[in-house]
């Protein structure tokens, strides 16, 4: 029987209360929301928090809404709600691409965006999704809030910019004209982690790529932002050939390891193919040739 090691449990009744508990308990405490990443790790003793602070009652952290030039997503928003959100699909369709293939529908009833990002598993999809659309996250501590870009969010494997005594409360997706996005993933079977996955967003201006975001899942120790490929695309007109080159950079710049899901050369190949596919689909969406 797999059961986590002993811990103390408390149920937060306010965001401030959760942060106060985190401050008091320091590095021995972890937030639990959906629990579908944390509890399996606790069963395997890969995570051994002495205190769990349950934030599932903090429904004020569950929302998807447009405000100014951003879409705001509360940290407790569950996968099922991200999948179904028409607002999010309209502005960032790669979320729906990803959510269709994150775990399975039953797990998606529990898992949350905040939990996924904070778990920071390299094979997790939403970190790449948020990186590609250049999202920012709001991190709240006793001293107030700070806003961190996804490019600074991943500190290392399973380690993020969220420090002891801090809570990720919101994800902010910038709304910009001329954009399209897509997420492509290959998995062994329904519900499995990715063998490889690629997220891409492009923003077009007068037929040229004014900006882009490309990120890979499951082919390195952390989510990989493909800045070399983004630089290649800048100012150029989208083409099959250009995106083939971006795919070649993806194959070269990832660092997969061999495991039960496949050998290194296969994963590099997938990273390249999926990067190209995601870019083509993102571009088609940007010019409204595909929804």
């Amino acid at each position, binding site marked *: *029987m*797999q*059961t*986590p*090691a*002993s*811990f*103390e*449990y408390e*149920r937060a009744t306010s965001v401030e209360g959760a942060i106060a508990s985190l401050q008091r308990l320091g590095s021995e405490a972890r937030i*639990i929301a959906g*629990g*579908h990443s944390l*509890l*399996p790790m606790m*069963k395997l003793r890969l995570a051994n928090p002495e205190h*769990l602070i*349950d934030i*599932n009652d903090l429904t004020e952290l569950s929302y998807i809404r447009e405000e100014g030039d951003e879409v705001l997503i509360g940290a407790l928003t569950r996968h*099922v709600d991200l999948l179904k959100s028409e607002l999010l699909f309209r502005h960032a369709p790669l979320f729906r691409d990803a959510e269709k293939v994150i*775990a*399975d*529908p*039953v*797990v998606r*009833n*529990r898992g949350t965006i905040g939990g996924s990002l904070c778990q920071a598993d390299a094979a997790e999809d939403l970190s790449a999704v948020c990186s590609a659309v250049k999202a920012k996250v709001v991190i709240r501590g006793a001293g107030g809030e700070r806003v961190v870009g996804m490019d600074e969010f991943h500190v290392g494997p399973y380690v993020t910019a969220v420090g002891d005594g801090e809570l990720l409360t919101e994800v902010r997706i910038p709304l910009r004209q001329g954009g399209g996005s897509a997420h492509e993933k290959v998995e062994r079977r*329904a*519900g499995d982690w990715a063998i490889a996955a690629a997220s891409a967003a492009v923003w077009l201006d007068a037929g040229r790529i004014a900006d882009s975001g490309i990120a890979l899942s499951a082919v390195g120790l952390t989510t990989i932002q493909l800045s070399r490929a983004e630089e290649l695309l800048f100012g150029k007109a989208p083409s099959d050939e250009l995106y083939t080159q971006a795919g070649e950079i993806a194959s070269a710049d990832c660092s997969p390891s061999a495991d039960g899901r496949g050998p290194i050369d296969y994963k590099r190949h997938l990273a390249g193919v999926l990067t190209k596919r995601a870019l083509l689909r993102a571009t088609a969406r940007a010019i409204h040739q595909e929804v």
Partner: protein
Amino acid sequence: MDVSITVNGEQVSREIEPRQLLVHFIRETPGLTGTHWGCDTSNCGACVVLMDGAPVKSCTILAAMTEGHEIRTVESLEVDGQLDPVQMGFHETHALQCGFCTPGMLMTARALLDENPDPTDLEIRTAISGAICRCTGYKNIVSAVRWAAEYEAAAKQGV
């Protein structure tokens, strides 16, 4: 810690360790062993129960997290000797062999039909994609859920 959890409409109160998983709480305390404890890694779906009407994997939820919520297990499907239409469908279309996955399949199917009374085969397959059956090849399970959907539609029309 003391918890009080609503299981099939009844309050179940007990002192538990915070680390106790919902699947073990359900099986041990009210002794409802219909909920099966399978892979323990949220992959197989044998432990699916409904939490406030939504299917969840009870091996990956702490019992303490469900206080204040309504839990429904497979034992709640049959009422006064009358099987739920999804149970009838599994019976009619031979949708089980060993039966180990069946409680989770039934609860997943019940939640699907509550939300979508007329699902396509693809929607049924998507809904049960988090549940593993090693006997049937799934075909008869999909047929069973279709059978239940049609039975409920006919019953609603009073046919």
